[in-house]
């Protein structure tokens, strides 16, 4: 099958991804084979291609916002029919036995595997994934239009959920790209007052376009568009070393702590 393969990371200007023909993967126990219809491009893919993240496996196929149809199911699968249209996210699999996995906080599992990072992803014609890490995609969305939901959208949604924001409260979005353009619509639906901070004129325009949608009667002009520079000007010092030491030594700051 056709794939874009990363042999060795390099600055993207040097085109580190190479078109390659690689064997069609076979779904193992509990896995499904997906015929990729579209795969979103994420900033994490750029970090991967350029080697900003340590790469555990090379060569490797990046891509983790995948929409496609179930082509084949491996042994011991039961969630989908062949030809179901599903989406795959960055989260590929957890160990399944640690405390985090047991508490539905598998995102913090120290042995978690990520799509297009530890295992081949969606910059290809096909990919395999555990069926429990695939999700039905509504027919409302085309393959391509569903892709931003699967990483930028989900991580933004998680951030919104963890913020515990309530209807009527204010939300500030710093930067406005793939993630924020999904989250703003969830926040507006929740009747939150959204403020967007972005320098890009195109992004400002998109924020204004998407912001008031879904809100019948906006209570006030939705977006206060300021430059981050004018808003975030550091004046004094809080030593990063202190923060680092705290996060290393203080149990209440371990991953997942409040």
């Amino acid at each position: 099958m056709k794939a874009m393969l990363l042999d060795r990371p390099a600055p993207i200007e040097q085109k580190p991804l190479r078109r390659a023909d690689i064997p069609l993967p076979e779904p193992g126990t509990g896995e499904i084979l997906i015929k990729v219809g579209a795969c979103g491009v994420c900033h994490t893919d750029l970090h991967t291609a350029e080697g900003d993240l340590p790469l555990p496996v090379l060569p490797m196929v990046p891509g983790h916002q995948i929409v496609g149809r179930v082509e084949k199911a491996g042994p011991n699968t039961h969630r989908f029919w062949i030809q179901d249209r599903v989406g795959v996210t960055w989260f590929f699999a957890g160990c399944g036995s640690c405390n985090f996995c047991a508490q539905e906080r598998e995102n913090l599992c120290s042995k978690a595997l990520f799509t297009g990072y530890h295992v081949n992803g969606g910059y290809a014609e096909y990919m395999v994934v555990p069926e429990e890490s695939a999700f039905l995609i509504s027919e409302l969305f085309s393959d391509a239009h569903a892709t931003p939901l699967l990483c930028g959208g989900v991580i933004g949604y998680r951030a919104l959920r963890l913020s515990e924001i309530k209807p009527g409260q204010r939300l500030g979005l710093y930067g406005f790209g793939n993630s924020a353009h999904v989250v703003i619509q969830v926040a507006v639906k929740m009747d939150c007052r959204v403020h967007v901070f972005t320098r890009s004129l195109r992004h400002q325009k998109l924020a204004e376009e998407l912001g008031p949608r879904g809100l019948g009667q906006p209570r006030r002009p939705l977006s206060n568009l300021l430059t981050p520079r004018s808003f975030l000007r550091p004046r004094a010092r809080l030593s990063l070393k202190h923060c680092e030491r705290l996060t290393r030594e203080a149990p209440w700051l371990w991953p997942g702590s409040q």
Partner: protein
Amino acid sequence: MSRIPEFDYSLIYGERTMRSVANTTRRDAAELLRVAAEIPIRTVVETFPLEEANTVLRMMKESALQAGAALIP
């Protein structure tokens, strides 16, 4: 990964909370996909042939994309 810039302590004083997010859970994905269909969420996506992956990643690096981009095999 870049370092987080310093800021004035007064920005965090007053029992303000900062928190980070790491990856996502299956529950997050299932919930967002349900909510996205209910709203329904409109996404902005430019599409490119799979072979142009290097070019699209470069466009992303140079902030030349409006929002989402997808590769079509």
